[in-house]
């Protein structure tokens, strides 16, 4: 469509205008046809009345010739240029009579109509005006067997009719024009009002871009409320993500600067101490491992979050762990309900399950158990939760250890010298924080460690 796609209002207005034009054009055409037909019929009726009146007045004279009284039924027939004309012609085409008004008009010239027939015809008269002419053929029966044929013609000038038609058309189009303008104005106002929330949203978004506003307001009409709240979630998570990356970068820079400084000074010495260099490089590696792996957590996706099936991920990770700990004969029992799934980034699910299962595999004596289920939240029973429990029969975790393990992942922990161990759990804690979940450590039935993850469903 060659309609400019610039604005919704323009599109709607242009479409409406085209539709209205088509509808009005059809209406005008129909009204015009009806009007024309009605006016023409009125003229035809009039002509017929005149013809029969003339026939009624006609009398044969003593020589069996047709005569008409000088006093005619319609005064217009008697006055010149009145617009109503009459003429009577015999069978041979010779003029028998004509009304004074028809003088010099050539009303019946060249016309002929059979006996008992009637013919309507539009024709130009000698004075250049148009007329509708009715011709009727009649047979005059006289006393005895003699009979004469005549043709009676009556014409009505169409100038008046044409004037009327033109005026009618003018009125029709101007009224419809007015109606159409009013409708378009109404539609325009309607669009303005109806699309106002969209315009407001656009304005708010540009305000957000300029940093003047933090988020979209909440009072949008029902059709847009979903878009607005999704947009807000997107904006919020984007902001959080940026914050998170900034924090990670800050922390990373912070924790790397010290070992770099040590390395520099050490290298400037004549005889750098190899052990110091080694220690500092290890420290840097620890920092990079810890910070970057934590930053790898993607976090919940803002918009569509397709649920990811849990069982295949658990099976894949278990088969990988069997490869990694080939020497260890581990029995892994999984209790996952059919079709159990959770809406998260697949990478995050892999991290959560992978790190915890890896721990369990590492510490267990030979038995690991994984249970996934959906249950009501402890805090608000109406909120459903996805609960993942991973336990082993290893030495278990003491209360002190538990506190250390689980707090390492918390925000605000800016220690640079993080040991390589326990990064996995820090990653788990980071991901849980992003999803609004929680982790607890307890002693398993077999005396080992039992980690329980609770994620809002």
């Amino acid at each position, binding site marked *: 469509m060659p309609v400019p796609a610039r604005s919704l209002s323009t599109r709607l207005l242009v479409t409406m205008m085209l539709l209205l034009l088509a509808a009005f054009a059809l209406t005008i055409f129909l009204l015009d046809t009806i009007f024309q037909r009605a006016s023409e019929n009125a003229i035809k009726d009039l002509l017929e009345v005149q013809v029969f009146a003339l026939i009624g007045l006609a009398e044969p004279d003593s020589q069996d010739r047709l005569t008409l009284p000088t006093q005619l039924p319609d005064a217009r027939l008697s006055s010149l240029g009145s617009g109503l004309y009459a003429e009577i012609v015999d069978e041979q085409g010779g003029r028998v009579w004509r009304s004074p008004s028809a003088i010099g008009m050539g009303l019946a010239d060249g016309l002929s109509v059979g006996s008992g027939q009637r013919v309507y015809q539009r024709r130009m008269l000698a004075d250049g005006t148009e007329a509708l002419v009715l011709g009727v053929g009649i047979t005059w029966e006289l006393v005895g067997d003699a009979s004469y044929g005549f043709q009676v013609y009556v014409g009505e000038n169409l100038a008046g009719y044409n004037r009327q038609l033109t005026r009618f058309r003018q009125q029709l189009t101007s009224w419809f024009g007015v109606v159409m303008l009013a409708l378009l104005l109404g539609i325009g106002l309607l669009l303005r009002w109806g699309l106002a929330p969209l315009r407001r949203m656009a304005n708010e978004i540009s305000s957000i871009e300029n940093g003047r506003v933090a988020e979209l307001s909440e009072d949008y009409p029902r059709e847009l409320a979903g878009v607005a709240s999704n947009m807000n979630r997107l904006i919020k998570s984007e902001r959080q993500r940026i914050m998170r990356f900034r924090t990670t970068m800050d922390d990373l820079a912070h924790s790397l600067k010290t070992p770099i400084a040590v390395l520099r000074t050490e290298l400037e010495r004549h005889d750098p101490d190899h052990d110091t260099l080694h220690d500092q490089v290890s420290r840097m*590696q620890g920092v*990079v*491992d810890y910070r*970057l*792996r934590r930053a*790898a957590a993607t976090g919940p996706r803002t918009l569509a979050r397709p649920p990811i099936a849990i069982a295949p991920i658990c099976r*894949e*990770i278990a*088969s*990988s762990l069997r*490869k*990694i700990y*080939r*020497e260890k004969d581990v029995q892994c029992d999984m209790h996952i309900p059919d079709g159990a799934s959770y809406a998260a980034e*697949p*990478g995050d699910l*892999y*991290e959560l*399950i*992978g*790190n915890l299962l890896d721990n369990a595999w590492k510490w267990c004596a030979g038995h690991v158990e994984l249970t996934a289920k959906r249950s009501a939240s402890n805090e608000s029973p109406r909120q459903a939760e996805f609960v993942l429990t991973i336990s082993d029969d290893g030495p278990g975790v003491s209360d002190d250890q538990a506190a250390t393990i689980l707090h390492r992942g918390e925000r605000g922990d800016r220690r640079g010298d993080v040991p390589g161990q326990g990064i996995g759990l820090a990653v788990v804690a980071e991901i849980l924080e992003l999803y609004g979940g929680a982790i607890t450590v307890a002693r398993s039935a077999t005396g080992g460690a039992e980690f329980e993850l609770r994620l809002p469903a």
Partner: protein
Amino acid sequence: MRLLIVEDDATLRQSLAENLREKGFTVDEAADANQGEYFAAEFAVTLAIIDLGLPDRAGTELIEALRKSGKAFPILILTARDHWQDKVKGLNAGADDYVVKPFNLDELTARINALLRRSAGHAQPIIQQGPLALDTRSEEVLVEGRPIKLTAYEYRLLQMLMMRAGQIITKAELTDQLYDQDFERDSNVVEVLITRLRKKLDPERALGLIETVRGRGYRVPDFGDQGGTA
């Protein structure tokens, strides 16, 4: 012991190869997946180290291709991205273990030794054949409990013979596994190496640790199931 390294970073690849050569391995270096696949097809590779982020193809694709073509040697993944999703993908594609960059060379060697040992069917890190014990973790060799000091080449040679104890290994195979393709194939070198090894392990030649099978090759006799092979 012929290792194949498929790694696109030239500095890392070369230093890794140098270090592994110092440890007595023969190393083929490939800079991308296609070259790696070619080397694997052309040479008797004992173990491959494959980086997951290769320029022409994903490392996992190379691993899948190698496994599909029937290559059974152990594969160790190198990855810079320490994500479970990547590790699982690599291991499921057919790799046997993974090492995350930046890695410690000792850790890498330990993983390589463990993989070599496992692929030879030894579950325990110490391979014992009669009086001879070989610790694949520390790369130490003990004869009747006495530690013996060996060079890297001597150690690899003994490792190969001990991992396949009871089997004859041809001189050609030993040469192939111990030296690069551009090395002059002088079979004398293996003979010299064997002689030196015998002298170090068993100066009196009383234990019969390395047998010469005339015209065929060498063999460490299978002393039976004495702990090591489970």
